[in-house]
């Protein structure tokens, strides 16, 4: 598995309309930006695939969040006598797992952890990586070299290997798995942020802002972040699917969730030996992982298309 390369994500600098250089008043910038986001939203709504994916994800998220309020079976209580019932059994719509627990309930509850483990590391990496990238790109020189070359070291390892190595060293558990994934995702995010920042820094309006007496903080806030956040955000959404798959992988290996907590990766592991007996049930957690990560990927694509004003 490889992460989407930052080099291939479209870093369109015209995307976020830069503020007029001669007027440092942010009100105008904000207005311009609001208009831009309205266009983006309108474009997304016209894109049926993206909307369908978003609705599906929304449904899964809502189900996961409100799982305890739905009248579902106990996700932990099983009976060995009714183990591995097929899909469509009476009282067990999606069958039962290897310990006779209701699969539908466990898939819904499993979504809670799987989604948290997929999204949290990306948000963390987005904040830390964007900060490092913008600082590196803005400061340039030795500081840039220090930050970016350190990040290159992490690039030397395949992402799966790095995640397994870090969570192996920290020990199993949800928190440690999320730390490991955050570390894995910081370098690519930082690299995207740094390359956009470096490009923006060489543009005339930054020079002009500086000449007009704007402070470094204002330049970063207004001119740089405005241009950097778009591409970085799109790139980060494309990482969510990778993160979900990696997180499931860690749980599959026993480095993520602790049993009996339902989590799709772990469920896949314990059900895989039943693939010859009850392939439908055994494939369900995998199907969930597949569906959700595809949806995130499609959404990321849709978002990128919508934010690209050249189209």
């Amino acid at each position, binding site marked *: 598995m490889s992460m989407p390369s930052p080099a291939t994500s479209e870093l369109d600098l015209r995307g976020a309309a830069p503020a007029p250089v001669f007027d440092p008043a942010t009100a105008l910038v904000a207005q311009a930006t609001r208009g831009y986001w309205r266009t983006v939203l309108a474009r997304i709504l016209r894109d049926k695939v993206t909307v369908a994916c978003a609705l599906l994800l929304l449904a899964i998220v809502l189900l996961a969040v409100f799982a305890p309020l739905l009248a579902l079976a106990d996700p*932990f*209580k*099983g009976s*060995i*006598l009714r*183990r*591995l019932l097929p899909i469509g059994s009476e009282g067990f719509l999606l069958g039962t797992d*290897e*310990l006779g627990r209701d699969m539908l309930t466990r898939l819904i509850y499993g979504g809670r952890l799987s989604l948290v483990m997929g999204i949290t590391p990306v948000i963390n990496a987005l904040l830390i990586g964007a900060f490092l990238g913008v600082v590196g790109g803005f400061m340039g020189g030795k500081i840039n070299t220090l930050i970016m070359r350190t990040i290159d070291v992490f690039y030397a390892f395949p992402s799966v290997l790095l995640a397994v190595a870090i969570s*192996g060293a920290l*020990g*199993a558990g949800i928190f440690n798995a999320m730390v490991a994934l955050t570390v894995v995702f910081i370098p690519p995010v930082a690299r995207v942020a740094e390359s956009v920042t470096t490009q923006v820094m060489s543009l005339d309006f930054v020079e002009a802002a500086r000449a007009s007496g704007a402070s470094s903080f204002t330049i970063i806030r207004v001119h740089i972040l405005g241009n950097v956040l778009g591409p970085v955000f799109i790139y980060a959404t494309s990482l969510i699917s990778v993160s979900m798959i990696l997180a499931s992988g860690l749980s*599959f*290996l*026993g*480095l993520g969730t*602790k*049993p*009996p907590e339902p989590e799709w990766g*772990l469920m896949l*592991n*314990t059900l*895989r*030996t*039943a*693939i*010859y*007996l*009850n392939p439908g049930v055994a494939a369900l957690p995998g199907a969930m992982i597949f569906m959700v990560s595809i949806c995130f990927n499609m959404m990321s694509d849709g978002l990128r298309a919508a934010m690209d004003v050249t189209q």
Partner: protein
Amino acid sequence: MYCSLLLKRARLALASALLLAALPAGAQTTLRIGMTAADIPATTSQPDSGFEGNRFAGLTLFDALTLWDLSSAEKPSVVIPGLAESWAVDAKDKTKWVFKLRKGVKFHDGTAFNADAAIFNFEKVLDKSKPHYDARLVAQTLPRMPTLKGATKVDDYTIIVETSEPDAFLPFNLTNLFMASPAAWAKTRSWTEFAKAPVGSGPWKFVRLVPRERLELEKFTGYWNKNRVPKTDRMVLIPMPEPNTRVAALLSGQVDWIEAPPSDAIPQLRSKGYQITSNPYPHTWPWQLNVAPGSPFADKRVRQALQLAVDREGLRRLLGFNAIAAKGVVFENHPWFGKPKFEVKYDPVTARKLLAEAGYGPGKRLKMKVQISASGSGQMQPIAMNEYIQQQLKEIGVDVEFDVIVWETLFNNWRLGAKDPAARGADAINVSFAWQDPFFGFARFYDSRMVAPRSVNWGWIQDAEMDKLVAKARGSFDAKARDIALSKVHERAVEESYFLFWVHDVGPRALSPKVKGFVQAKNWFQDFSTVSMQ
């Protein structure tokens, strides 16, 4: 590019299939086995990968002075003469044993097996001054024979073996010291080179080894025991750690035999005409408790309560009945079982009562942490099984938390003991183990000296009474007296419940209908010589 590679492979497979089909009947027969190991076990004469390593890369290529009798599926297997014809302990000094070696035995390279060759193989793990001493071999050997001290030659076919203390378990332990050809080692003077073309005196000769892919062997017609000259011409051993891969390989005809098919795949395999063999063997799947002072499990009542809280029938059902309910370290009908005063069974009422006596109840639930693995050699289906036990213990008021770690780390933690930081405060550890000899079954767990770093008394059992019983067994040189002494050790082990005994493995194997004549012994090791292919 990838596609063309696939095409090429498919063509190659087709070509080889046609070639195989074109071979006349009665041509060379080959037995192909899918092992559970992730790699070919070391062929240095002291295999790694645990007892599976010995099964496939030890006892096939090599012999030991003493061997296990693997000829019967009914009787518990016993130690029989191998490259030693007989042995006896010195009546005056019980640390010295005289071994009479078998005459006329030849290694695969034609050189003779004699006292010099035997001494050479003792030195490879004991004598640091010798060039053939190798620390890697030591690691696979000495933990299985901790009292072994040295060996000296008396004449060409007699040697004296010395132990550091009187130890009646020595003949068992020596089944793990394999005899390699000194002449083959001398060619390159390196065990690494030796492993590329190993030479022993076992029933199978080395042909070819591709790391992580295959080990090919052929029958050794000059084997000293004519009854054990293989009935198949060649044997190919293929590492396949993933259980579903093994099943797929068997179903597609890529192998003729797989080790440990997943229990949920067995009904399907059986319905397709595959033979499923199984036999209880000395492999048990327990929780080993931390009983150090201060632990809730220092209290015998708590340990016994847990012992009574789990319905082992449910575990058996989970495993497709490919297990037997454990009532102790060994099986109920085993000579070492004895007559324990405490019966391991499902009795939640008594379990709750015992817990209440120990001060636990609805207001004060007992919390415990168990280190388990997500998979691993011999660990059966660790997550599902542990979750089942967790559910059952919850019913009597015990909340179990799992610390899931990688199998290799768990195995390492087992050696580090419960007091090591690596245990992260765990109250129990789940490592399945072999108990086929008295050291493996008892001494390494219950002897108070066997705590870390010496061996795997993980939970710091410091029981003076137990020490006495173990010492007595170790000093009983008569087989009957030794078995009685071991049954006393076992009785106490059950009564004290230092381990929670869950199930014994029955070692399921799935064989193609073409495989004939396999007798699955009640042992970790199996004899492939009797197997023929039709």
